[in-house]
């Protein structure tokens, strides 16, 4: 099966210089894919020609052209937290997770840095440490590696990723619903700059290093949202006596009502209401109620107890927007 090139049987320069330029102008520029041919490898091209000039079939090789593939410097950073991470005022060890990927084609070291004061949020989380994951994707300050810029910059092969944890402290002054943004930046140690910037002889395998479309640095942001709750306690008292009046005479019964109201988007853990029995009064046994239901005086499975000097009702975790009502009675001595 033989077909002729353009023009059938005629021989001519195919195509002309002008034609090459025109075709090139029509072709869309190609973007580099992730990684790609490894820096330092060689692209070799040789063509062969076979023909017969009367002495039988002959084959010749062209000259060989060898191209050294240079290093493309590219990196991306992606936040691994799909939504804002809840935090509370004053909380320490609040972690954002990022993934740093070498999208270049050579092994490269990357310097990491964080920015927490870029604006666009309500407060600046205080970055305390940056950790390099040990490979399990889970933050554990005991097993992950504390990062120190310039001392243990992560080295990544092409297409390799590393998980990075940014630990922060939330200021105590933040309010419920406040957002705080932290960005992680990774920059190729060989150099960064405008795409196309070249660093002669600094590529893997002896070629040049060339800044790719990412500028050889990457950045992404993660955010915290303050999820706080406040507790308000309101205590009231009412008196009944045998006279049928509200006078605080000896033998009168005082009913105390304590209403705990939790407000905010967060919740309160371990909430407990404790009240000492006032002097010159005696606790009325079995009088503790929670939400209208009686509680026993013993320290047992139910939430309430009386230990001789005070009542205590353990409310546990109460979410914002909820109230708890506790009552108990004393008698005036």
């Amino acid at each position, binding site marked *: 099966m033989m077909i*002729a090139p353009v023009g*059938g049987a005629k021989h001519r320069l195919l195509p002309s210089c002008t034609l090459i330029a025109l075709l090139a*102008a029509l072709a869309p520029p190609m973007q580099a*894919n992730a990684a790609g041919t490894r820096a330092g490898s060689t692209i070799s091209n*040789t063509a062969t020609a076979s023909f017969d000039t009367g002495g039988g079939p002959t084959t*010749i090789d062209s000259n060989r*052209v060898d*191209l050294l593939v240079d290093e493309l410097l590219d990196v991306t950073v992606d936040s691994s937290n799909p939504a804002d991470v809840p935090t509370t005022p004053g909380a320490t060890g609040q972690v954002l997770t990022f993934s740093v990927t070498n999208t270049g084609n050579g092994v490269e070291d990357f310097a990491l840095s964080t920015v927490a004061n870029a604006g666009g949020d309500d407060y600046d989380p205080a970055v305390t440490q940056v950790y390099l994951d040990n490979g399990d994707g889970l933050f554990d300050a005991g097993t992950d590696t504390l990062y120190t810029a310039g001392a243990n910059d992560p080295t990544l092969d092409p297409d390799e990723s590393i998980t990075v944890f940014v630990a922060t402290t939330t200021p105590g002054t933040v309010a419920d619903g406040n957002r705080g943004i932290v960005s992680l930046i990774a920059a190729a140690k060989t150099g960064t700059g405008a795409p196309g910037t070249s660093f002669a002889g600094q590529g893997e395998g002896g070629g040049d290093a060339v800044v790719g479309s990412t500028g050889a640095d990457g950045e992404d942001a993660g955010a915290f949202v303050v999820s706080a709750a406040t507790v308000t306690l309101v205590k009231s008292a009412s008196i009944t006596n045998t006279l049928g009046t509200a006078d605080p005479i000896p033998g009168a019964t005082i009913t105390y009502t304590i209403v705990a109201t939790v407000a905010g988007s967060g919740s309160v853990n371990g909430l407990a209401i404790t009240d000492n029995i006032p002097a010159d009064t005696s606790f009325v046994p079995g009088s503790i109620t929670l939400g209208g239901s009686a509680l026993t005086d013993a320290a047992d499975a139910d939430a309430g107890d009386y230990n001789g000097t005070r009542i205590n009702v353990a409310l546990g975790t109460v979410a914002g927007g909820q109230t708890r009502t506790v009552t108990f009675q004393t008698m005036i001595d």
Partner: protein
Amino acid sequence: MRPALLFLCAAALPAPAVAANQVALDNNVFVERVSTDPEGKQRILLEEPKVVVPGDRLVFVLNYRNAGAQPADKFVITNPMPSAVRFADAGDTQPLVSVDGGKQWGLLADLSVQAADGTRRTAQPADVTHIRWAFQKPIPAGATGKLMFRGVVK
């Protein structure tokens, strides 16, 4: 970087080592660069491949010359694609291509490849493993010509 169009035109009359049989095949590779001039117009330059990175477009130019006294019949030029280069196009030179390592040849549009699930699909430029130009008529003594194709560094 040297502007390449001049270089390319100069290469139209190569002086490679001429084999005893008097037919020579010279192989050149250039990198296509897109630059935008101050007026915002895009310009395509062919440069010597001093720096090559993944995604770069390479232009392979093959110059042939029959320097002998006899016509060269059954003239066929074959270029295996370097493994790190994905075939893009061959301008209007209409080569035969192979997508199976050189076993079968045809126009790209007529070839198909087997997918992992056993079905066959139309061959794409990225499937090309070899390029071949087969001339129907002999190359006269003294004739020269040029062939080209483009590829992208994987």
